[in-house]
């Protein structure tokens, strides 16, 4: 079972064109800022919004192909959906909610109830079978919604912002629960989220969608190592500089130069490129350092975020940077917003790679 999706549609002035595939048994996260078009992609896959162009295929079955005038209705697609606010049926008990899809597929009532009971048991909700959705907590409602979607044995499970409706206190717990339950389902799973923690905690692979386009796909390690956009860089907390590279020296639009190491395996070809710098690699000096460090810039401290064991310092200068230092270093340098210091990064601590 695999999915090949090319979703192209316009909503007013918003233009979405996204292409990706999901391998059998894979968990994929569609990650992107609000309004990037993630949920629209999900609706298109579920058959709730017809696409204007492209094609959606699961295995050999074409679900949507406007060019060939093919459109399989939502109720005929073997796709389960867990909505952001779950959309449980308020007039039905938890058990009847889970049995709904089985009944709709023509299963006799008694058998549907038996299977639904098993699913509730698997979700640890056997005691809540008779409860109405209004009597369930957020985490319980989510598990009912998940059981409801999985009970019909879909080929593809879609989850729209599965943790967004929960308060911060229960999120971590529900996230690990969800991770466990998702692991028991063997089909393809796609989750939509704007939270990188959820994406990286739950998915094998991340597809980043920005402004209606896929900006990057890859595993957590790949995306973290080589972010391709400011959005992704901010998500994973690294500095990302774009510009033109010639012989390993990147020149930004503002004219600053960054001497970078060559790519990990091969020299980065000349042309449009990105350089990422981990905040921990940036060293701050009170005076201009005279050493082997190739990248040295005079910078001004903009603000300082203190965490328990580290301090993130935002810097402005020829290149905007975030540096991460220890609380001890902060005290030794007596940094405060407005302080003038020197930021230094060894060329070997930077990673350069082509923009595309």
């Amino acid at each position, binding site marked *: 079972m695999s999915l090949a999706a090319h979703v192209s549609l316009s909503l007013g002035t918003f233009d979405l064109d996204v292409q990706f595939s999901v391998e059998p048994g894979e968990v994929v996260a569609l990650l992107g800022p609000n309004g990037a078009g993630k949920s629209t992609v999900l609706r298109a896959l579920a058959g709730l919004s017809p696409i204007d162009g492209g094609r959606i295929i699961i295995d050999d079955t074409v679900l949507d192909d406007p060019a060939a005038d093919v459109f399989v209705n939502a109720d005929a697609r073997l796709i389960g959906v867990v909505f952001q606010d779950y959309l449980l049926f308020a007039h039905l008990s938890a058990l009847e909610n889970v049995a709904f899809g089985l009944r709709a597929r023509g299963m006799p009532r008694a058998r549907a109830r038996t299977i639904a009971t098993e699913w509730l048991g698997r979700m640890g909700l056997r005691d809540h079978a008779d409860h*109405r959705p209004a009597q369930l907590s957020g985490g319980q409602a989510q598990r009912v919604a998940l059981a409801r979607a999985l009970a019909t044995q879909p080929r593809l499970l879609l989850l729209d912002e599965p943790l967004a409706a929960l308060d911060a206190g229960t999120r971590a717990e529900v996230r690990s629960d969800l991770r466990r339950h998702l692991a028991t389902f063997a089909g393809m799973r796609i989750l939509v989220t704007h939270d990188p923690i959820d994406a990286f905690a739950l998915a094998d692979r991340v597809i980043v969608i920005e402004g209606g386009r896929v900006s990057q796909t890859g595993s957590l390690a790949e995306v973290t190592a080589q972010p391709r956009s400011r959005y992704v860089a901010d998500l994973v907390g690294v500095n990302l500089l774009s510009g033109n590279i010639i012989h390993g020296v990147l020149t930004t639009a503002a004219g600053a130069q960054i001497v970078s190491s060559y790519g990990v395996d091969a020299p980065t070809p000349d042309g449009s490129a990105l350089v990422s710098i981990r905040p921990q690699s940036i060293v701050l000096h009170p005076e201009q350092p005279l050493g082997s460090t190739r990248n040295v810039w005079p910078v001004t401290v903009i603000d300082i975020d203190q965490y328990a064991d580290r301090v993130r310092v935002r810097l402005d200068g020829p290149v905007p940077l975030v540096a991460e230092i220890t609380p001890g270093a902060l005290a030794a340098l007596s940094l405060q917003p407005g302080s003038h210091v020197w930021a230094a990064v060894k060329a070997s601590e930077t990673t350069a790679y082509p923009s595309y």
Partner: protein
Amino acid sequence: MKRYFTVSSALGVWTGAVIVFLFTPIAFLVAMSFNDYKSIFKWTHFSTRWWGHMMQNTSLTSSVRVSLEVAFVSTALALILGTFAGLALAKRPGKWTAGFVGIILLILVTPEIVDGAGQLSWFVLLGGPFRTGLTPIVLVHTVFSSAVVTLIVRARVAGLDERLEEAAADLFATPRRAFFEVTLPLVMPAVLAGGMLAFTLSLDNVVSTSFVSPAGVTTFPNYVFGLSGGIIRPEVAAMATLFIASTLAAVGLVALALRRGGQSGTEIAATFTGN
């Protein structure tokens, strides 16, 4: 602190006064059904004799039967028309909605005396079944009852999350199944409340009913109204008491059904007031 106490006790007294003002006539009527005297305008002493007489007065009992038949049939018709109209208004709004809502509001605000006169002249023109039996009364009641049901159902449907039908579709429910298994059950409280309202509106309608009633067909309120020039006997009060009791029982049953359907008290109250 003292001042607040005074204000709140004044409000309490005011509330009590309003309740007394509203319910004294009803309590009075109930009390008068146990009056021994032949009229409800003078109390002599306690008796239950009129409760026995009530069932022997055939013009009274037949008027009650007419009222109940009209109420049941017109409510059923109003529920069918109003539920579909309400669903259509909320789910498929378009250019037609404003005009349609305008017509409904027109039905509700037109003075009944105008309604009645217009309907009578129209029925006379049509003749035949429109001038005999219960048909003309049922039609007149159905007109305003379906307007009421339409507005109540529309409010409820508009408050429903239409994505629930999408969720049903994702669970393999055909549009037809989604409607009958999800939308309709969720709209049911409004249908029940609309039905209650339609039923009571039909039961106590006097003005337009009196215009269109064919000869020999009299509803309970019109029977009572016809008596007012003369003497109203306690048997009428007894029948009215029976009506009040059964109305309260019906409201209780609906509330119970809604509660079993998982609604809170506030939601039930909101349903009854059409919100």
